[in-house]
């Protein structure tokens, strides 16, 4: 029996056990909104760095700080940049993506999640100074006026996991309606789509799901809804008129993977008309060496580490090239063979030009050429 209580995708979406509020966030309207939605959840105001350090130390002393951190929501202000060009990874082909980092960490608990080793603070962080975000976005996009861009949240946290508390999807859509040259993407594994169903979908909005085989979702994506439920949510949004994206990332070699991915892809095209799919991405499992220990400690029964991994050009562990080739080639073929699937824009995430050539039949000249290939279907 999987523990889904209080997690998005279960009957009760994410509800933290405690909220910590940075004193600088107190007056933000988003703070008030979230606190009102959380009702009687215990809350404490953090007034200075010493108090924050003590609260963090309490979590870090827990047997599993990452699990303990997921139960705490930290409302604070972003003092750095919200908007960043996705750094991709050294030595591989990027896609010119732009990320908005509004929340950090994720209430879900996927064994392969890069955030386990990437972020220093284990709690779920939400930045509340969104007025600053809108002005920063204005400045960022004005400097690139007229250029097609793909912008999205969900790099450092799930885009929709907190949406029932924040309602930010609606605010993002209002903003991006005024930026038709940009495709704005929300990426999720949850089925937290109630807010989205109430909004008239903007033409340039894309709601994306991360997909895997049902076996992997069940074994490795703790707290996330089943793939079938994700596809059901996708079908509801497609019917509402949304454009959708799907990310087969990370593709994982495991017992029965070919049959497993064939089943998901078949279910995907049964639920969602290919014409509504803006793009599908493929990315193979990869992780820094330091994350391996974290995964082994936190998920001792996982089988995701048993592939033939080698050190990539970005110093991350990746499947040896022919194994990746096999994965990509198979999944790409499964997508393309399904009638309309052949017309869906497909791209590889953080892969080498050689893999692009062998799998996709062409080699991008650079990250802009990937982006251009994805803009053709707008």
């Amino acid at each position, binding site marked *: 029996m999987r523990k889904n209580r209080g997690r998005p995708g279960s009957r009760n979406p994410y509800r933290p056990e405690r909220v910590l509020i940075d004193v600088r966030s107190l007056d933000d309207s988003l703070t008030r909104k979230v606190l009102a939605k959380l009702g009687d959840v215990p809350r404490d105001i953090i007034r200075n760095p010493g108090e924050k350090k003590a609260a963090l130390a309490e979590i*870090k*002393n827990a*047997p*599993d*700080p990452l699990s303990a951190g997921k139960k705490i929501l930290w409302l604070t202000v972003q003092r750095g940049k919200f908007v960043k060009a996705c750094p991709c990874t050294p030595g591989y082909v990027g896609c010119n993506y732009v990320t908005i980092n509004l929340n950090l960490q994720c209430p879900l608990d996927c064994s392969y999640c890069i955030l386990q080793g990437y972020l220093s603070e284990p709690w779920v962080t939400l930045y509340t100074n969104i007025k600053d975000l809108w002005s920063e976005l204005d400045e960022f996009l004005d400097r690139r006026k007229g250029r097609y861009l793909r912008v999205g949240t969900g790099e450092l946290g799930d885009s929709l996991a907190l949406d029932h508390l924040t309602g930010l999807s609606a605010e993002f859509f209002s903003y991006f309606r005024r930026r038709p040259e940009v495709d704005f993407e929300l990426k999720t594994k949850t089925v937290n789509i109630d807010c989205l169903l109430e909004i008239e979908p903007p033409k340039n909005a894309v709601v994306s799901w991360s997909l895997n085989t049902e076996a992997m979702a069940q074994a490795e994506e703790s707290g996330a809804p089943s793939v079938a439920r994700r596809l059901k949510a996708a079908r509801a949004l497609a019917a509402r008129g949304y454009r959708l994206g799907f990310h087969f990332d990370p593709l994982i070699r495991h017992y029965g993977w*070919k*049959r497993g991915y*064939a089943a998901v892809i078949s279910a995907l095209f049964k639920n969602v008309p290919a014409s509504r799919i803006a793009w599908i991405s493929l990315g193979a499992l990869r992780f820094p060496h330091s994350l391996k220990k974290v995964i082994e*400690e936190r998920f001792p029964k996982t*089988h995701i*580490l*048993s592939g*033939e991994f*080698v*050190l*990539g*050009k970005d110093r991350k562990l990746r499947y*040896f*090239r*022919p*194994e990746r*080739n*096999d994965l990509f*080639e*198979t999944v790409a*073929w*499964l997508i393309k063979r399904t009638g309309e699937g052949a017309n869906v824009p497909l791209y590889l995430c953080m892969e*080498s*030009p*050689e893999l692009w050539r*062998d799998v996709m*039949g062409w080699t991008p000249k650079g990250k802009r050429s990937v982006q251009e290939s994805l803009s053709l279907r707008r």
Partner: protein
Amino acid sequence: MSPAGEPGVIPAPLIIAAPEFPFFVRIYPMTKIVERKILSLSEIDLADDRLKITDPVLTDSFKASVRDVGILQPPAVVRRGKRWILVSGWKRISACRELGVTSVPVCVLDAPRDIQAFLWAVGENLAVRELSILEKAKVLARLRKFGLPASEILEKIMPMLGIPGRKTYLDLHLAIDRLSPEAKHMIIAKNLPIAVVQMLSVFSRRDLEALLPLLRPFGQNKQREFLEDLSEIARRRRVTPRQILGNPEIAAILSNDRWPAVQKSERVRASVKRMRHPRLTAWETEFGTALKKLGWPEDIGLEPSPFFEDDRMTVTFSFKTADEFRRRVDRLHNLAADERIRILWRHEKKPRTPRV
């Protein structure tokens, strides 16, 4: 022999100082020195090592210091029934015994519970040096045995030992304490870092019995690599490392009496590497075969990119004269003109339909 020329009597201590350990005083305020006295060595039960943290290595210079200067810091003892048992000062007492000293100055502690006395010993050691991994492991294991709650160990003891106060680290140290004496000996002898010790700690005693002789000839990096390879294969095949080492190829290496230990270890390491990376090994073999087919000259190096991650290759050669340079370049020119050169890029393949 004492400098005063009286056999069996230790020189008068220059200083008798009770160490102060504010942390322990906070936990166990009742632990204190109640008396300083001279005890005959025969009155101390040295066979009772329940409070011993380490097995000290007695050096000649230390013995000379005790002989010439005396014991500056008297060992601490506690009363248990009719016996005295040693809390700290094992090395000093060993030196005295070897020097033929029969009486020593001691501090008597008021520590009715073993845990109090043990913490005193920990504090006294920490005041003068950092504990080794094995000593830290022993301290934590003993404290658990003495009944100190895990929460107190995590919160108070581990940070003081320089270990993050997390359960995973506590479990790791308890596992290290359970290692066999042979494994512990190698940790000390090879000064193994915590990362390698951690890898060793997950193997069973029986696995370690098979592994340790193979590991011994290696340096730290090769040990780490070897252990990682074994763990990966064990995980993938769902077998124990001992079962891997029992496979026919490795068993044949191990039973070959002509090879010295170093050579056996290296061969086993290579074999394990092949098992962990079967496809990479196949590519490397095929690359070597392609070089042979092409008649690639031995004095010109050709390296594929690391792990064949991209198609780039690197040619290296050296030369001393213009003639030599021309000869090498001519050979490369001939190789470049050979149509078969494409076999080096074995992965340049025709599109195929995957089988699902």
